[in-house]
């Protein structure tokens, strides 16, 4: 009997120790000397091919020589799982990059993010709302991609189709796709992610996924399926079976148009330089709109996108917290934005100076429409900041694969999704 109690007790003790755990760094000295050397760790992914972290770190250290920023590399595909594991074990980074807005509430409700409401943000910065919970800010955006329409000028010319001029609705887009389809290439390519359809559907009808009403998706799915059926777009199943890459499809001119996020411009420029992509003229145009109300360069087109941001580990040494906040402020500032624009990243702040830097990169499109599409838009968040978002997006992901693979009709899939939200999210 005694042995059993002892065993149970020791298990409980170890368990308690293990979990109450490790609040990581202890509270070290109270030195507030702003010039004392400080090392901050920052979480990033695919560091070799994602230069934004190093760029920001270097630019910041130039202005603040006493601060060293160490990058901690994480696997890109499992980033959130690994960061969660590290934070749970108390070995998380000082500056936590928020790769997806879906997980912000997880970190915040778990007490892992420091309140950074006192970090000054420039006017006109986009995406700050995504990091606000209960009126306080828990991260700052440094990057805000949005979805635009990429188009291949060479293929347009060959088919004799007028290039987009910023006034397109979805009907115009479908017409162009039909006219552009040849034996050698399709009119357009749509990647397999749920965001390619749902992002526009929600942003342009001003619907939040949290409402649990998905009737707005029907038209958008009908349009996409029509494009598939007409043969103007590679169908979802073939795309899946052959693991088609969007970079490959547009880059090797297998599709004349493609809806994609602005991050692709940097990739395309690099691939054209290295020869992986064909050499052709291309541009970006605002995404097709729901109706005429938001078309044309006099209006502001509506599109979607989520920011990427930096948060601060709530367990950070108090001596380091100031330096960390300074880094956040820098990353969101115009200086940070400039540094990012120069390497082809779309920063959260896109004022005129930043636009100039971005399009000054060799290989970037130079026409005005591209600059307009990149800088002028109403970007609505793809993922609202809430603890219900991840579950609902999972349900919608299942809807997407069911409908796009042709195994369920859109009406049935919408009904199933709505029922599931009621059942699983409440």
């Amino acid at each position, binding site marked *: 009997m005694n042995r059993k109690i002892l065993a149970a007790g020791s*298990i409980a003790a*170890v*368990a308690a120790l*293990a*979990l*109450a*755990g490790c609040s990581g760094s202890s509270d070290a000295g109270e030195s507030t000397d702003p010039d004392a050397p400080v090392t901050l760790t920052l979480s990033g992914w695919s560091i070799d091919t994602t230069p934004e972290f190093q760029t920001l770190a270097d630019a910041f250290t130039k202005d603040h020589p006493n601060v060293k920023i160490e990058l901690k590399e994480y696997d890109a595909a499992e980033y*959130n*799982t690994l960061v*969660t594991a590290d*934070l*749970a074990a108390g070995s998380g980074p000082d500056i936590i990059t928020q790769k997806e807005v879906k*997980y912000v*509430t*997880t970190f915040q*409700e*778990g*007490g*892992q993010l420091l309140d950074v409401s006192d970090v000054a943000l420039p006017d006109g910065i986009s995406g700050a709302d995504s990091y606000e919970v209960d009126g306080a800010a828990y991260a700052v955006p440094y990057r805000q991609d949005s979805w635009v329409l990429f188009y291949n000028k060479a293929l347009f010319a060959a088919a004799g189709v007028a290039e987009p001029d910023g006034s397109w609705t979805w009907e115009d887009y479908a017409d162009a796709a039909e006219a552009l389809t040849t034996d050698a290439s399709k009119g357009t390519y749509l990647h397999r992610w749920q965001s390619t359809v749902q992002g526009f559907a929600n942003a342009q009808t001003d619907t939040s996924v949290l409402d649990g009403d998905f009737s707005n998706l029907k038209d958008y799915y009908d349009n996409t399926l029509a494009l598939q059926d007409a043969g103007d777009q590679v169908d979802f*199943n*073939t795309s*899946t*079976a*052959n*693991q088609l890459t969007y970079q490959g499809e547009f880059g090797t001119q297998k599709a004349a148009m493609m809806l994609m996020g602005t991050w692709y411009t940097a990739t395309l420029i690099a691939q054209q330089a290295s020869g992986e992509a064909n050499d052709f003229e291309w541009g970006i145009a605002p995404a097709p709109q729901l109706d005429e109300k938001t078309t044309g360069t006099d209006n502001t087109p509506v599109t979607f996108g989520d920011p990427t941001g930096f948060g601060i580990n709530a367990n950070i040494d108090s001596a380091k917290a100031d330096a960390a906040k300074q880094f956040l402020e820098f990353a969101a500032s115009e200086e940070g934005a400039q540094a990012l624009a120069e390497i082809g990243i779309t920063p959260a702040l896109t004022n005129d100076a930043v636009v100039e830097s971005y399009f000054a990169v060799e290989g970037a499109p130079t026409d005005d429409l591209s600059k307009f599409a990149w800088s002028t838009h109403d970007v609505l968040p793809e993922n609202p900041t809430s*603890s219900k978002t*991840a*579950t609902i997006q*999972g349900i919608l992901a*299942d*809807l997407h*694969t*069911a409908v796009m*693979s*042709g*195994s*369920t009709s859109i009406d049935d*899939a919408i009904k*199933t999704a709505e*029922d*599931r939200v009621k*059942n*699983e999210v409440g």
Partner: protein
Amino acid sequence: MTTTEAPSRDAAPPQTKLPRRRSALRRRNALIGWSFILPNFIGFGFLTLLPVLILFYMAFTNWNVFGKADWVGFANFQRLMGDGSFHIAFWNTIYYSVMHIPLTIVVSLGLALLLNNKLRGVAFFRTAAFFPYITSIVAIAVVWNLLFSPDYGPINEVLRAIGISEPPGWLTSSEWAMPAVVIVSTWRDMGYYMILFLAGLQTVPRELHEAARVDGANVWERFTNVTIPSLRPTMFFVTVMLTINSFKIFDLILVMTDGGPGQSTLVLSQFIYKKGFEESQFGYASAAAVALFFLCILVTIGQFLWNKKRSA
């Protein structure tokens, strides 16, 4: 199978009372038995058993993985009962297992019997059977996705060639996705279980086979009356492992279909992973893991009892 008690080697004096001798014996056996188990148990207990116990505890809390774990009693389990996705995952898992388990046993046992000889080239065939298991799962998913491609894949081309005008959609159809997964999974596992059966077949005494043959028994009779009974411990092991592994299937489905299309291939392990790592509801995910555990354990105990009855 019972074990005999080893006769005590230190010859106890005849006057010793019987009960004390027996309890000294029992204690000695216990000590020796524990000394065998301890090296493995120390590592196992701390690194596997303890996390599992913590997991069980978490199933009754609203754990958010960062240290907060308030007790909520059976609330997570009640929620599971009403959760539509959990039901789907549960029945998909059963569906998968019911197809996968008998198929794999038959195929791998057949392979083992076929290849349990010293014919020329048998080493090559055994290696061929094992190749699917040692190939990376990423490669398997990519290759089979291609082979199963409904319009351009070789499998449907063959089916069309033999006259089936509308071959199944395989991984793109919610009806055929699970059968496709079962096919790939059996293809992958048969080499693994073949090895276990091969090892087990070595314990079948040759003399019994000879005796039976002399008695006029044909191949089938020899198989059922000599091979199968001798294989019982191995068969038990294979069945238990195969059952548990089938209930727990995760990697293959994740890379092949990710639960799709829709939720047609969603299985319990994946439900647990999603709830935990994608939706950050770790307490709830733990409850689902406990449910999966009970499913496995109940079936295993059933198999355990069946095996005990058979061997008695």
